[in-house]
């Protein structure tokens, strides 16, 4: 669901296809009939954005038909946990949970907290299991058909296949991509999948899980490391001004008493030691105050709005293309004209680099003040370094040739820019500059490799060694993150990656050994954390430590050896026996028993109900997208109560059912092009395969609008309008919502005004908006109008 894997992850999709040859059932639930649908055993159409209703229907089916995996759910989830008396469910409150403040459009989650007891009989009306049952009771197959437009018989087939294929002997996996994340409640859709998989016992087991199919070579790495505003490396929260005044307070409030996150102070102090070296001391909070503090939402969408208002002066863009690849691309281009300076680093002249003379707005260059630099960068084979793929696997790529002429790696740019800036500030005694001056910045190789023309290329392996971590006193590489300390004696750039470079010359990401006797292939690359290929794999064994079945054997307790063992690295304390009782006091994993597999959670359990961590409710609840042609059929509340809408003149969002924008539009990718086209539309082979922008339209809608295949059409939203050719196809179909016919239009978003092949930009139609937890825009379900003809 939420993914067209055959089209967008074709080589990954080879494995589900091989599984199908061996008897597996592939189900595809999607608004469009795609290459994935064509390869599936069962295709189920679903109206864009109604995924929570569909998944909620499956959860309800599992509960009402008693198909949940009882031993697993009782032992490994929070089903038995009693929730606070003050909790009011959305079912009893028109679609809002307790704690909602309409003034600020935020939730106070105090009333979602655990009450502190469990009821192992699951009968207490306030236990999670009973709350879950009540919350999803109305998500019936009939309701799924009404809300999602998915035929009831097909929905029931999905429910039957999924429940039959889950349990001791069998597991099912769910794959998703941006078809889920690019909605104003995207994180809650994934949560719904999590609830379903926990109920079916499909988490932490081979063949189970929820697979995020990510879209860029190292987008997982750029999330882990990360280049995101709200986190420091390894998912540490980035300190915020309003609460994290001191390191002590940050450590106390960000850390959690129970579970592995209780070690957060060790990760944070080691990070500060990696960044500031000897200048990071206990006396100066290890340099904590040199880390800038957040003063609000500094996400890409928010920053774009600020940039369009002239509040951002300088912008550095690394291999990205907001001028046609980001939401509300017209606003993005306008924002570039407000900059004093722009640095774009890329292999090609992207739409972003060329905005000042080539944008469709037709601006005169003389009117644009922005000083623009296009720095040519190295490509594949021209530099070495690590990508983290979609399964958390770090793979090193080697350098084959020097990059041509003045092209350089981004690592070269960053290293030499940092060196120059340190030099420019070298005489400063201003406290604000001491973070930069104290930044450890020693990445040139001990001696340049004589094979290469470029002699001042920094060593990627030196950076990776710092990412791995080392002891401060004698600079020994750390074997893993278990050795990190909060007393300044260890340094570590990204704690979850520790173990990737455990000794000089031992780059585990560069391992390329197949293991013929182990399908996990543990010696190919390095998976974080600690080379574990399946997270929480303790759950692959029963509470006593025995595999649930011989067929699904993965890790287990070896009583004779007194340790966990298996075909993967056990994701559990190696010597902690299954019958170890939880300690009543202390911190960290001491609070968990030997049968609590979810070591990062405070209570060691998989969360059916989320007492904290989400800004939009403890249980996934069906809302309509911010723009929808229909009213919410399940709740009085129409849409996400906490999503951000960016109310501004240039960002109008259509009201529900606005007759001027009666159709749903959804955006997507095709195999032969790549995101904004910067990496594909300069390529003659790929451009020839997929040369032109188009709009996918159902024959029914085409008839209604008098449109024939290959006619020009104009698609419009309150933000902008674009023209392209119509592709009239039965792959698109009308949906029925509560009896009303809803037409959908599909738009790929690969084209722009640069490259060998050019075309309209689907992102021109998208609004600025933000899902409240992860700040992602909604572009998988917008409303639009459609007409035959050209723009002018």
């Amino acid at each position, binding site marked *: 669901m939420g993914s067209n894997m055959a089209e967008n992850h074709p080589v990954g999709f080879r494995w589900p296809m091989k599984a199908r040859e061996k008897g597996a059932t592939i189900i595809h639930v999607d608004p469009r009939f795609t290459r994935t649908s064509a390869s599936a055993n069962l295709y189920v159409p679903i109206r864009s954005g109604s995924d929570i209703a569909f998944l909620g229907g499956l959860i309800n089916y599992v509960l009402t038909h008693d198909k949940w995996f009882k031993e697993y759910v009782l032992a490994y989830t929070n089903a038995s946990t009693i929730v606070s008396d003050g909790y009011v469910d959305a079912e009893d409150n028109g679609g809002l949970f307790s704690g909602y403040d309409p003034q600020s459009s935020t939730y106070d989650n105090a009333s979602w907290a655990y009450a502190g007891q469990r009821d192992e009989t699951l009968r207490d009306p306030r236990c999670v299991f009973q709350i879950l049952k009540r919350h999803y009771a109305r998500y019936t197959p009939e309701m799924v058909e009404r809300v999602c437009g998915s035929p009831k018989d097909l929905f029931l087939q999905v429910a039957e296949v999924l429940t039959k294929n889950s349990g001791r002997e069998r597991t099912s996996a769910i794959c998703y991509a941006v078809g889920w994340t690019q909605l104003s409640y995207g994180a809650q859709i994934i949560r719904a999948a999590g609830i379903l998989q926990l109920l079916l016992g499909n988490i932490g087991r081979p063949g189970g899980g929820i697979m995020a199919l990510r879209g860029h070579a*190292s*987008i997982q790495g750029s999330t882990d*490391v990360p280049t995101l505003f709200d986190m420091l*490396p390894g998912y540490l929260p980035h300190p915020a001004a309003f609460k994290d005044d001191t390191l002590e307070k940050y450590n106390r409030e960000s850390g959690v008493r129970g579970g592995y996150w209780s070690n957060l102070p060790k990760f944070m102090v080691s990070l500060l030691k990696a960044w500031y070296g000897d200048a990071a001391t206990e006396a100066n909070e290890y340099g904590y105050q040199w880390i800038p503090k957040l*003063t609000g939402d500094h996400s890409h969408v928010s920053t774009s709005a600020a940039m369009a208002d002239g509040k951002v002066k*300088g912008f550095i863009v690394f291999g*990205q293309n907001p001028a046609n690849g980001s939401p509300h691309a017209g606003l993005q281009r306008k924002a570039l004209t407000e900059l004093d300076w722009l640095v774009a680093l890329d292999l090609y002249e992207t739409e972003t680099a060329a905005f000042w003379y080539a944008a469709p707005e037709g601006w005169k260059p003389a009117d644009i003040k922005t000083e623009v630099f296009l720095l040519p960068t190295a490509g594949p084979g021209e530099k070495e370094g*690590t990508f983290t793929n979609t399964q958390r696997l770090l793979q090193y790529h080697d350098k084959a040739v020097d990059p041509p002429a003045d092209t350089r790696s981004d690592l070269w740019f960053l290293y030499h820019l940092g060196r120059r800036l340190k030099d420019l500030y070298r005489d400063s005694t201003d406290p*604000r500059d001491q973070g930069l001056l104290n930044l450890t910045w020693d990445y040139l190789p001990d001696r340049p490799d004589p094979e290469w023309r470029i002699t001042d290329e920094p060593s990627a392996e030196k950076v990776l060694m710092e990412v791995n971590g080392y002891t401060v006193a004698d600079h020994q590489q750390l074997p893993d993150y278990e050795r990190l300390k909060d007393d300044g004696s260890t340094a570590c750039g990204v704690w979850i990656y520790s173990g990737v470079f455990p000794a000089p010359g031992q780059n585990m990401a560069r391992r390329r050994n197949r293991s013929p006797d182990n399908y996990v292939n543990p010696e*190919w690359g390095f998976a974080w954390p600690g080379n574990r290929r399946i997270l929480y794999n303790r759950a692959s064994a029963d509470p006593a430590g025995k595999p649930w079945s011989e067929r699904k054997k993965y890790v287990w307790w070896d009583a004779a050896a007194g340790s966990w063992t298996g075909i993967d690295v056990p994701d559990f304390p190696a010597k902690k026996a299954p019958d170890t009782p939880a300690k009543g006091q202390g911190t960290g994993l001491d609070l968990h028993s030997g049968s609590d597999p979810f070591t990062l959670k405070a209570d060691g359990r998989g969360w059916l109900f989320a007492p904290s961590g989400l800004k939009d409710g403890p249980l996934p609840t069906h809302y309509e997208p911010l723009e929808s042609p229909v009213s919410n059929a399940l709740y009085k509340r129409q849409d996400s109560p906490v999503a951000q809408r960016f109310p501004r003149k240039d960002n109008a969002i259509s009201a529900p059912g606005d007759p001027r924008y009666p159709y749903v539009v959804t955006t997507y990718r095709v195999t032969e092009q790549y995101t904004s086209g910067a990496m594909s539309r300069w390529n003659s082979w790929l451009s020839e395969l997929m040369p032109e922008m188009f709009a996918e339209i159902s024959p029914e809608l085409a008839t209604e609008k008098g449109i024939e295949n290959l006619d020009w059409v104009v698609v419009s939203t309150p933000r902008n309008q674009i023209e392209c050719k119509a592709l009239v196809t039965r792959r698109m179909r009308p949906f029925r919502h509560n009896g009303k016919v809803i037409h959908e239009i599909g738009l790929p978003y690969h084209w722009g005004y640069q490259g060998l092949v050019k075309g309209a930009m689907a992102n021109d139609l998208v609004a600025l908006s933000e899902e409240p937890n992860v700040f992602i825009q909604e572009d998988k379900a917008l409303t639009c109008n459609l007409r035959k003809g050209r723009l002018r």
Partner: protein
Amino acid sequence: MAIEQAGGLGLGPLGRLGMSPQPVSRESIEKKPRIRDAEKAVPSVCPYCAVGCSQLVYVKDKRIIDIEGNPASPINEGTLCPKGAATYQYVVNPNRVTTVRYRAPHSDRWEDRPLEWAMDRIATLIKETRDATFVERTPGGKLVNQTTAIATLGGATMDIEENYLIKKLFSGGLGLVSIENQARI
């Protein structure tokens, strides 16, 4: 593998089934794989989606002559999709920019500039903008040590070592808060 060894073009049992003379052109006989004379095959990873297909970069005379799937990888076993199979042209392409292009404010043209000049100029601009916009404390007195006037975007197509230095330099060193990438989209 030589064509003769494949046994398909006239010499093997199937070849004799055809009419005489052989319907194989000289061009077909002389065709050879692009990688035949490669001096080395360097392990790499596909730059497109996140499946992480392993590639081999074939090199001759210090130039890339082809990029193909790496049969050793348990992920792709030598296969690539249309984009991955076109990686060669992503790198070896006449449309590629190989010199620094600079556009002065209000100018209507690109100019080529030396790399070192551009690096110095960019460092100076960052310092000027940072110094002019840096905020040490909020009006309420909270220490924030930040600037919101410079933003960075990107990283998902780049190495983790590069991402790490972006975060370290721009956040830990310079106090930028808007450091973002495609993962937000």
